């Protein structure tokens, strides 16, 4: 049999919940996509090598996918530090992809011990030692979890050698150049400053009271939708900012305010501009936006 010329993927987990693995497995074309690659190791699929092989043999991979937060010591598999294993594969791989907020910034699990737990190349916003070694090949896909399409399309773009533009945190701009607010069906309520009154309604904006971080979160969730059908804000849950280095902030369901105005402004919007627009918008009361969209007959 001819040697496979497919790009080799090695998917390695550290301190994780497996959320990215399961998110990606919900990709509608999962199998078609994976068949384009040779999967050296994967956490839930039957793969060519065992974890013991991955840890104790020197295998090679083209694309190293990392899931979960890292610590230099104290996270061992088969008696070896997984951080060291990740670094040794990262040195030889052509691409290093950190999937999820944990492997990118440290995420939820960093909170347990922020002194020693972080992302592979960033601790929150700060680049760490590994960043210097791997910045040339690093692509970050933060999110809790990363959207299946972000992972699938990035792998396909690497395969087809498309141009992949990255931001300061090495996130692909085609995905993270949007705000999670773009495409939210509650946008009209945001424009006219109509608050959500309670949970469980289609109407109202969640930015003012309920902690929604979509206007300053980099992600295209409301453009491409989750599981192809929905998003947090579409079902009345605030965006928790899970693609950002400060995720998860405290008081996730409450908006921090300064003099009654959200303390964090929408992406790149000057506070003065926001206050001016808000003042004008609030001086009008738009009847339609203060009524239910659908009034079912009894």
């Amino acid at each position, binding site marked *: 049999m001819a040697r496979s010329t497919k790009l080799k993927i090695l998917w390695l987990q550290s301190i994780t919940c497996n*959320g990215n693995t399961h998110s990606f497995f*919900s990709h509608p074309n999962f199998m078609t996509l994976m068949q384009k690659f040779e999967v050296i190791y994967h956490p839930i699929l039957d793969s060519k090598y065992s*974890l013991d092989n991955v840890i104790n043999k020197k295998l090679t991979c083209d694309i190293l996918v990392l899931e979960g937060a890292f610590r230099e010591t104290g996270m061992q598999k088969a008696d070896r530090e997984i951080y060291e294993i990740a670094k040794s594969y990262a040195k030889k791989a052509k691409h290093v992809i950190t999937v999820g907020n944990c492997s990118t910034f440290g995420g939820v699990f960093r909170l347990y011990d922020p002194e020693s737990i972080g992302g592979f190349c960033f601790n929150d916003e700060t680049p760490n030692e590994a960043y210097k070694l791997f910045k040339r090949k690093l692509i970050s896909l933060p999110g809790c979890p990363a959207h299946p399409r972000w992972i699938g399309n990035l792998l396909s773009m690497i395969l087809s050698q498309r141009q992949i533009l990255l931001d300061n945190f090495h996130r692909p701009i085609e995905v993270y150049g949007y705000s999670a607010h773009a495409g939210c069906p509650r946008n009209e309520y945001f424009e006219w400053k109509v608050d959500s009154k309670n949970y469980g309604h289609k109407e109202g904006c969640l930015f003012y009271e309920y902690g929604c971080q979509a206007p300053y979160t980099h992600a295209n969730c409301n453009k491409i939708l989750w599981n192809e059908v929905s998003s*947090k804000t579409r079902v*009345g849950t605030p965006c928790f900012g899970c693609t950002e280095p400060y995720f998860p902030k405290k008081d996730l*369901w409450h908006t921090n305010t300064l003099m009654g105005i959200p303390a964090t402004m929408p992406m790149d919007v000057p506070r003065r501009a926001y206050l001016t627009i808000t003042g004008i918008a609030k001086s009008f009361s738009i009847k339609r936006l203060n009524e239910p969209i659908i009034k079912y007959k009894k």
Partner: protein
Amino acid sequence: MKVKYLIEKIEGEAELEFDFKNGLVDNVNIYFPFYRGIEEILKNRDAMDALVITPRVCGICNHAHLIASVRAIENGLNKAGINIDLTQKAISLREFTLSCEIVQSHFKWFYLVALPQLLNLDRMKCPDNYILKASWASTNIVKALAIFSGQWPHASYAVPGGVSCDPTYEDIIQAESLVDEVIRFVENELIGMNIDEYHKRKEISNIKGDMAIIFGMLDKHNMKAKGKSYDRFAVFGEHPIFQTGQYNKKYSNDIDFAHIDEHPQHNSKAKSVTYKDMCYEVGPLARAIMTKNDFMLNLHDKYKDSVLTRVYARLDETIKLLVHIKSLLANLNVKELSCTLANMPKALEADGVGMVEAARGSLIHQSIIKDGKIQKYNIITPTQWNLSSGTQKEAGIAAQAIKGSVSIEEATFIFRTFDVCSVCTTH
């Protein structure tokens, strides 16, 4: 002779340390190596933050953690005198989304774990077709889930007093069509007959499709009657198609959180759990036993808590849940309120317990809230019940089931019939 074995692809890893005597497993110790400290992370955070943080315990049963978490808050509110009455709509939506997650997990267990592991015994590779089936079926059922929860994994749409979504009939129609698709998949692939015909089955041998393949393989490898443990079962979480209670030689519908104890284990980061000082099995088999349907009772009479009954219970539950969630959608009244609690009370003092049936069994969250902040949070996962090494008095459920195995391959398959989840076990 002691043999160490790293077991992987179980939502993380575990280490099994076998003690062989005369060629049979005499004892096994189960070590889960890594603790992530979710309960510690929650300390001093706002009570509602648990709804976002606890799903991150587990990538495959995150939604069950959300529901346990919201039930714990609601139970605390009720005990604090703030009456929480959910509308039928909110109850049904939570049940729907939770059931979809269980179905998703069972599909993955069957096609990615159970069948490939048995094929390995014959030195055969898992065909791509099984991965395709697992992916197709789980993707479609979580799509139906996400219509209401916003996304899967890691939604937080269940809030104290109900749910945050406000679906239309059009949303419900879309979910119904996805459930229909998945039922069609079950009929064509999993059971090889239509559901009505399946309901008329008299024997396991009447079942066709992929389910027949697994029963054939269990037969071939002489495993049907293996994997017996203590034949004790517990169901804590309320769900309309499962009966809560416990079985230990006889049935009892009394079950009380107060009799649960957690015990630290040497060398493992996971605590073992007992009810009245005894180990109990939780999960699909426990739910099936407590529900007492004739087919299951006959099977149980013959095989007790063996590999065959455990495998059958998980697959049969998949079908039961799909039938159940169709009726939930058919009866959903969108005119009812989604959420009945206007606001969380300020400076809340509460102590509540939330119990839920997750894919692998009873999941329990306990939250103690002082001045609106989480003072203490405790999570007891289904896999802690099933997969501990045990207590000083007796071996754990899976450890007991593995005793007498003829090989590591057989022992690890029995272990996997409990549907292992490493990340939940330690959390």
